[in-house]
């Protein structure tokens, strides 16, 4: 946004790094969240090359073994290593949630920005459309979308994005609306900015801090959503390792005492959601220049 200002010198970049370091050191919870986030990211990137077993390789001689030194999280009914499957699944689950959230962030920001800045009938129409989306039970809507479009990873992403758009659009609309007549927006017009530029480069960035909180909450929620869809058999299909499917498959074995099948993927799912939820405050503080002193 402001990358072409003369002040954007190396010292500015250093200040940003210092600021991030400050935010992390100020709040230990944020530090933990970022550390866990880094862990999940490295699992997603490096996971498949690090895990001890092929997540798809079956071994009927060692089926349904409890956790041991050979198989940390035990093995499933086909003798696959649960630990390897949980780690490898990270990539797919993160991809789905990040892509879905990014998509809804972009679309929601555009729609909300337009509605908030220009108002009028555009605003009214958009709001009613968003209300309509929100009137559905969101998970059922996502199910419907996946069922209608077909059972693929892309469609899970689209479905998750669609149900998230209203949250972003409303947030951006409110943030833009309170600032559209602010002094700095008017000053930007006097500096020769068109309305579109004022909206995109002067008003919208001010909506980022609350957006970051929304993003992090939504990332966790999107993972749950994707896992939920897989759990009921929509979306990712077995034998692809995915937390939702693994919990779904493992659930059948809890009664017979093989608890590790469902517990570990479920635990990972919980940890991921937990991480994203904690991340919010830290992200907000990082993108808010007012936190710098």
């Amino acid at each position, binding site marked *: 946004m*402001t990358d072409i*200002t003369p*002040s954007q010198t190396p010292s500015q970049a250093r200040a940003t790094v210092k600021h991030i370091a400050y935010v992390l050191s100020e709040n230990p919870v944020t530090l933990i969240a970022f550390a866990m986030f880094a862990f999940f990211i490295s699992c997603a990137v490096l996971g498949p090359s690090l895990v001890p077993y092929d997540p798809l390789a079956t071994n009927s001689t060692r089926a349904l073994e409890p956790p041991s030194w050979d198989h940390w999280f035990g093995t499933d009914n086909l003798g696959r290593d649960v630990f390897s499957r949980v780690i490898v699944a990270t990539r797919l689950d993160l991809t789905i949630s990040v892509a879905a959230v990014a998509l809804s962030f972009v679309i929601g920001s555009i729609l909300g920005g337009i509605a908030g800045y220009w108002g009028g009938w555009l605003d009214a129409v958009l709001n009613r459309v968003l209300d309509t989306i929100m009137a559905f039970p969101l998970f059922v809507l996502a199910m419907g979308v996946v069922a209608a479009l077909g059972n693929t990873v892309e469609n899970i992403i689209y479905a998750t994005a669609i149900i998230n758009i209203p949250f972003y659009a409303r947030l951006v609309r409110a943030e833009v609306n309170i600032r559209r007549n602010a002094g700095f927006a008017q000053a930007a017009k006097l500096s020769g900015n068109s309305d579109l530029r004022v909206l995109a480069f002067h008003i919208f*960035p*001010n909506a980022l801090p609350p957006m970051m909180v929304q993003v992090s909450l939504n990332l966790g929620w999107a993972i749950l959503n994707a896992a939920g869809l897989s759990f009921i058999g929509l979306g990712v299909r077995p034998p692809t390792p995915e937390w939702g499917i693994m919990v779904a498959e493992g659930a059948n074995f809890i009664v017979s005492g093989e608890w590790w099948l469902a517990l570990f993927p479920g635990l990972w799912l919980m940890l991921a959601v937990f991480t994203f939820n904690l991340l919010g405050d830290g992200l907000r503080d990082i993108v808010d220049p007012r936190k710098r002193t």
Partner: protein
Amino acid sequence: MLSVKDLSVAFRTRKGEVNAVRGVSFDVAQGETLGIVGESGSGKSVTSYAVLRILDEGGEIRTGEVSFNATDLRAARESAMRDIRGGQISMIFQNPRAALNPIRKVGHQIEDVLRRHGKATRSDAKAKAIEALEAVRIRDAAARYDAYPFELSGGMCQRVVIAIALACDPQLLIADEPTTGLDITTQKAVMDLVQDLIHERGMGSMVITHDLGLAAEYCDRIVVMKDGEIVEQGTPATLFSRPRHPYTHRLVEATPRIGGTIRGLLPAEARTPAPRHMVQDRPVLELIDVRKTFQSKSGPVEAVKGVSFTIKQGQSLGLVGESGSGKSTTSEMIVRLSDPTGGKILFEGQDISATPAVRFARHPLRRDIQMVFQDATDSLNPRDTAASAISEPLRRIDRMRGTKLSARVDELADMVGLPRNLLTRYPHQLSGGQKARVGIARAITLNPKLLILDEPTAALDVSIQALVLNLLVDLRAQLGMSYLFVSHDLNVVRLLCDQVLVMRGGEIIEQGPTAEVMTGPTHDYTRALLASAPQPPAQAVA
């Protein structure tokens, strides 16, 4: 009655401890009005909060004694303090709108206090609340009882706040900047009312203000605070005529008054001869019967009803009026942020109102008409550094980049007296005066021919205001700009402007050379305005 001895207050902040108030002692006697005067950050509000023990989080009274009618307020239990607050000591806050609960009827809010302090029962609360509203001279009090704060004007809201404060017959009233944000005629009405009520009831009061003129007019004794300490105290007459402390002296000088000069606002050592600006007999801006009508739910509202005037090249025109007079709407139309519903705006003979405001960003005359906004904080993007705010017009209109751009930004910073090392800061890291300078620098980057100044000093302390006004005078002489100076402060207009226009209800009711209008106003309203402006007592000739 109230006695404060050696009071110190400290705040814990991210950068360590800040001593906001350091060893302050004063007394308020019954029936006396004490004025606490100081600039922002002097600790005057914190002192009053400490008395009531309503300090913000992180604030703590470190040392000192606060006693009220022989009660030790520092040691008093919190439950006892709750009885004292509003019952025996009450407070009027700075922003009346913020001090009232927006979703409750004002009558109910008065009842709350009355019933909290056992001054009314459920059955007679309403009658007593109406009585309290009548006491602050609200006409038709019974009808106002049912009003919500948003339905009332600023002055009316402040009256309600006063009614709440006085409802339980307190002995001491603390008024923290009670008239900030109110028009001067309203200010006078509110202050007169407070004074009368205090005298009627024989109460003591503390008036906290940054306005020396106001303090001089309404206070029996004045305490001047600076950086958490009391530097001087005395009666208004002696304080103004023979200030002993250099800070008081500077403060008195920086307060605009009749017969003062613009350089006279500065400390004596900084006074250079005032530059002269040349007025040429060539109009820069002409407004011909400009009108603006807004469509509201209750029908069209005529904000500006046919305004015509001319600004000559190099001339400074003062546009004076109270809120709702249409002066801001007029300046918005001139600066092309909104379109007039009728009439023409000519800039050097060219009709600029022909280009709609939405497309004016690309108009070749965009660079020639710039504006300094009223609220410097609000007019700077919190996400942009000072340098990027100043350079924005250059980047957008002149397409300037790189070293040439940073050189120009440095030059502008020097021109407005902003230290260069502050350029990389964000607005929240700058003081009010520094933000005002950034706003001015941004407005003059393109060497505009006409600069519209919308109350550029309204939010500033007097000493900063003195510097900013002098800067504006220097820049005017240096760059040959014409000014349209929108203000409600007649004392400031008197110093800066050649011509003055008085607006009321969307119409110009009086115009002429500043000296003539100020000394011989022909319209009653102008006379009322002039009479309402608080005047500091004349200073002894140094």
